[in-house]
């Protein structure tokens, strides 16, 4: 039982971390915290891939002269290298969007932004139909 648990321990923790990230993204109204949640989710996916690429008794996939060396699987490492860099690019884009949202609506809290948006929409309606309010 203990060995069985050790065999899937990494997967269970990774799933837990993923769900913490997802919970942050859905439940928090603050946009910066949503972005941090997204990066937690991302990092746990990286952990999942690297866990899959691990070979027990293996070593890092850098070729040595010794014959019969067991290496870990290099393919997940390559995929995740790409994903890390793309992840930073999306983070930068998200932060730029947050800065613009803050400039337009004066807030980075989701409910306040929605309220400000509804307010400005109502003001536009009132402007379009001047006779409507009177």
């Amino acid at each position, binding site marked *: 039982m203990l060995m069985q648990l*050790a065999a899937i321990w990494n997967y269970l923790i990774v799933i837990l971390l993923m769900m913490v990230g997802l919970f942050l993204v859905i439940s928090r109204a603050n946009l910066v915290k949503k972005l941090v949640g997204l990066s937690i989710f991302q990092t746990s996916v990286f952990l999942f891939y690297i866990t899959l690429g691990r070979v027990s008794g293996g070593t890092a996939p850098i070729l040595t002269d010794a014959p019969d060396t067991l290496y870990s699987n*290099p393919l997940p490492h390559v995929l995740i290298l790409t994903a890390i860099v793309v992840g930073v690019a999306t983070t930068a884009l998200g932060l730029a969007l947050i800065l613009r949202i*803050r400039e337009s609506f004066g807030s980075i809290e989701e409910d306040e932004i929605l309220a400000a948006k509804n307010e400005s929409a109502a003001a536009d309606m009132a402007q379009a139909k001047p006779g409507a309010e009177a």
Partner: protein
Amino acid sequence: MTSIMIDMFLLGLLVFIAVMILRTGKLFAVIVMSGGYSLTSAAIFVNLDAVDVAFTEAAVGAGISTVLFLAAMSFLPAEEKAASKSDSTFSRTLIASIVCVVAGGLLVFAALDLPAFGDPNAPAHMHVAPRYLEESGTLLHIPNVVTTVLASYRGFDTLGETIVVFTAGLGVLMLLAGATRTRRPDAAQSTAQSTATSTARGKAKKGAAK
């Protein structure tokens, strides 16, 4: 065996940091903790033989993205608004919990079928990876297999990656350059107001410090 123990300890540390991020309202603390989260996961990558991934994660994930967050924070309020006890907050938390529990349950169910941790006969190790490990040394004379696969076997993937990064950089530039140019007059007024209030707040803080 020690490597498994280290692995379990570091994963436990990650869970601890994630829970602390969940509970903290101060955004600077949240950002620094997410940097620590990246660094801890880099340590796990070293332990799992992924040295290239580890130093990329330490440099890019823990370094650059923390710097980006901190740079953005200089324009943003430093604290999360305290959660009000309104119905919408409660229902949002409820929905998030339900989604997370259901999705997590499904993932755990799927994880039970995955090959055991470190199993050398897992299907993932049977496909192209052996070819990369056997061929690349004699064919391309680069000892680091990860570099070989990244730049040679899967060079087009890397080209696509640079295109994505370029597009994102372009998007950031356009978003932030437009911030100073295409500003509506009323929006400009409201930002002027907000900067005025923020300077007022800064003065108030200075006053408090005195």
